[in-house]
């Protein structure tokens, strides 16, 4: 879609201003500050500073633009001071602002204006100065809500793109961290940055991501999720194929594994791609904590995933098709609790799962204090009452509760799992174990068929890559993970310079004496 642009009238300052006013008609936040400056009266220059109030930093406007022009021109050399109408002169000698750009077209004026810059137009010139005066209110860097960390860094991304890229830059102090920029959205003109580390990342991958970003033809990009949906490979899968995080350290880690990050202005989330299935089970904390603990947590998450996916389906399959699988004593208890329940087991399970989904949704959208009330009412009162009233059996409540709790352990997959769970439940209640097995087969094939920017989604498992298993269910010690994951096809495979990798203690033994000496030297 094309914006109605006014044409630039060469050297006609008044007309230009009028046209600009017409473009921004009914925009009360537009400020056109007209003023004049100059050293002697007859050579006074008429000028206008145009900016959008709220997007700009008033301090810069006042102290670095208007003040030098109006008050500090006596600091100029005399021959310069005589003719102030030269834009280059103003730019080079007067404006004490970091980013100043000369612009020529009305489009640029509008874009600069909208992105929070101040525009200086002077009478008699067909150029204008685009002065970086971005500012305005923004949220301070705070601890991320969606991912909390115990030992790791606590900062999280904000809605401001520059802050976000700066946070990453602060982690990776290397000129080869590249940040390409693009503007997407015909109306929103959202700034989108593409980050990668040159020398690690596969250049084809960067080109591919950029190509897909450029292909986006929409009028609005309001959050990362918008971009995600436009560039992902498999639009019809419930599984996330692009990873996103609120934590700069996590994103930096992904970049260092040879991935590409995409940051979108206005969202405190940064996406990275390609994404592997196993990333759903990884957290930034894993790499900080000890590897045994991290490994056990990984396994725990995998178990939680299995439970939250299969528990209701397996319960139905066992209690309605394969009662022989239930230990005899447990069968009696289960049978006792299903005496007098009016619904067949699948319906019973469906009701409880539905109630749980509603409770979850209600809890998420409500303000936190109310959310807690809802969960207490839902979990305690409704569960207990439903059992008491004989609408559902106690085992069903237990199973749904386990399912729910387990799904919270794998936040990335929660959405996918809560859909697939229903699919498996239907299969299990029609075909029992066979249904579940066919469901698992379909699920496996589906996962195996997914691609994320050319990487196999199920990567170290299918296609099997033995050497990449170090960061799956097991999180090997960092010194043992001496290569980057091959799924991202990094240019520079080696993470450690020393090859072969060594257990730190064993290398210490070899050179222990020397190290010790050195340490003593540096010890004050």
């Amino acid at each position, binding site marked *: 879609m094309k914006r109605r642009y006014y044409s630039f009238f060469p050297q006609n300052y008044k007309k230009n201003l009028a046209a600009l006013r017409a473009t921004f008609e009914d925009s009360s936040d537009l400020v056109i500050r007209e003023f004049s400056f100059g050293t002697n009266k007859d050579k006074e220059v008429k000028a206008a500073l145009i900016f959008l109030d709220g997007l700009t930093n008033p301090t810069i406007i006042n102290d670095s633009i208007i003040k030098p022009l109006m008050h500090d021109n006596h600091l100029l050399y005399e021959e310069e001071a005589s003719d102030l109408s030269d834009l280059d002169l103003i730019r080079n000698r007067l404006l004490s602002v970091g980013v100043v750009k000369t612009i020529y077209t009305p489009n640029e004026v509008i874009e600069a204006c909208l992105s929070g810059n101040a525009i200086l137009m002077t009478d008699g010139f067909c150029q204008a100065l685009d002065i970086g005066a971005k500012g305005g209110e923004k949220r301070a860097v705070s601890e991320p809500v969606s991912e909390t960390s115990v030992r790791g860094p606590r900062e999280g991304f904000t809605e401001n793109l520059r802050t976000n890229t700066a946070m990453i830059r602060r982690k990776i102090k290397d000129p080869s961290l590249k940040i390409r920029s693009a503007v997407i959205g015909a109306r929103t003109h959202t700034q989108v940055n593409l980050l990668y580390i040159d020398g690690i990342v596969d250049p084809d991958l960067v080109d591919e991501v950029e190509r897909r970003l450029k*292909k986006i033809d929409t009028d609005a990009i309001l959050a990362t999720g918008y971009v995600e949906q436009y560039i992902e490979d498999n639009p019809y899968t419930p599984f996330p194929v692009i990873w996103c995080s609120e934590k700069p350290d996590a994103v930096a880690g992904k970049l260092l594994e040879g991935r590409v990050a995409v940051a979108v202005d206005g969202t405190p989330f940064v996406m990275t791609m390609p994404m592997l299935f196993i990333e759903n089970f990884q957290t930034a904390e894993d790499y900080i904590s000890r590897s045994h603990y991290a490994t056990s947590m990984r396994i725990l998450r995998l178990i939680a995933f299995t439970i939250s996916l299969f528990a209701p389906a397996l319960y139905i399959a066992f209690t309605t098709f394969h009662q022989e699988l239930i230990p005899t004593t447990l069968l009696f208890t289960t049978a006792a609790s299903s005496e007098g329940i009016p619904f067949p087991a699948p319906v019973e399970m469906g009701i409880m799962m539905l109630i749980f989904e509603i409770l979850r949704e209600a809890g998420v959208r409500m303000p936190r204090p109310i959310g807690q009330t809802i969960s207490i009412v839902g979990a305690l009162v409704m569960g207990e009452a439903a059992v008491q009233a004989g609408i559902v059996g106690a085992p069903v409540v237990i199973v749904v509760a386990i399912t729910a709790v387990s799904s919270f352990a794998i936040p990335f997959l929660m959405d996918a799992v809560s859909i697939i769970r229903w699919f498996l439940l239907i299969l299990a209640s029609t075909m029992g174990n066979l*249904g579940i097995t066919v469901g698992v087969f379909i699920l496996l094939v589906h996962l195996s068929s997914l691609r994320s*920017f050319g990487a196999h989604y199920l990567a170290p498992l299918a296609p099997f890559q033995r050497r990449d298993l170090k960061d799956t269910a097991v999180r090997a010690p960092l010194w043992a993970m001496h290569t980057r994951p091959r799924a991202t096809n990094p240019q520079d495979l080696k993470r450690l310079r020393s090859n072969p990798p060594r257990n730190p203690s064993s290398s210490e033994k070899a050179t222990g004496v020397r190290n010790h000496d050195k340490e003593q030297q540096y010890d004050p």
Partner: protein
Amino acid sequence: MKSTGGNISPKDLMFAVFCFIQATVLRSGYIIAVTRQDSWAMAMTGFLFAIPIVAIYAALLRKFPGKNLIEISDCIFGPIIGKVVSAFYLFFFLSLAALNAHDLGSFVVRYLMPETPIAMVLLISLMGCAYALRKGIENLMYLSICLSIIVAGAVAINSILVLNDMNPGFLKPFFQMDLMTYIQGTVTIGAVPMGEIIAFTMITPMLEKEKKVLKPLLFGLLLSAFSMAFAMLRDILTLGPLVSIVSLPSFESIRYVTLADTLTRMESIYAVVLILLFLFKVCILLYAFILGLSHILGRKNQPLPNQDHTNPSFNTDQPSNPKSFPPLTLISTALVFFYSLIVFESAMENIDWGASTAPFFSLTYELLLPAVSLLVAFLRKLGKAREVRE
């Protein structure tokens, strides 16, 4: 990106062979009924019997690199006889797919869901297969290692759990039956589960290194032979003389698992693994059939349907190649569905077929036709002779 998309590594192929044959462990009842307590040895001799068969496939594939079995027979026999030979192969693949689907169905109906009509079981299973085939066979092949690990784990766990019920005395006496019995056992194992890997000759053109066929096939076979011998040993040791009268020994032996009175009746869990394997096998056989059919019906000199999407994610916006093959997946699956419904009237017919005629039927296509093809190719001096000499 130079990812392995569409390319299958030899390792994948090897474990795919393993999974493929492992699905047939259930059918070991045919052989165990014949060779009884010595059946475990038949797995090994069967493997020896299968080596020349595999060597013939490897020689054919070497002579005509990048071509699958149907294309090769077209090359060797010319367009008309080639089509006839291909049609024979196709019938074989179709029958195998139907037989295996029927095996799956009757297994599920007999042991898991006795009151469900077999048609429903087959329908849902074949829907799973059709889905997998539409997603591309390579995705299934990638899964083979994972699947093998699951299978090995399940077999190991189950075997450990029945350890308590084993009696080594059941293995005796060793080798006291007629020689003919052992020949029958060897040929049956060599032909029925092992020789069926002829279906993989339709997939080998998708290999990363298409010339390295013999090794993965042989090692896959060896692996399967070991695991088959292991499973048979377990069954014989747990079931003793019962092994030759129960219909599915490997399933029956797991029914004894009792661990602390809670972990009993594990066979439904094992059944899950078996069904997965059966789905895998039926998928491979169906793929062989569909690809062969496409080749017969499709236009000449067109790229293979699976080779023009070596890297599917990156050409999303490029115009797809005009498909020269009609989409046969669903309709072929439907054909297998109906075929497997009528293939046997009863389990007794199934057993009779498996024990008496199946080895000869299979050998015709697994040994006779390829051997004749190879011979004709030699006589007509077709293919890359230089490579054969190496």
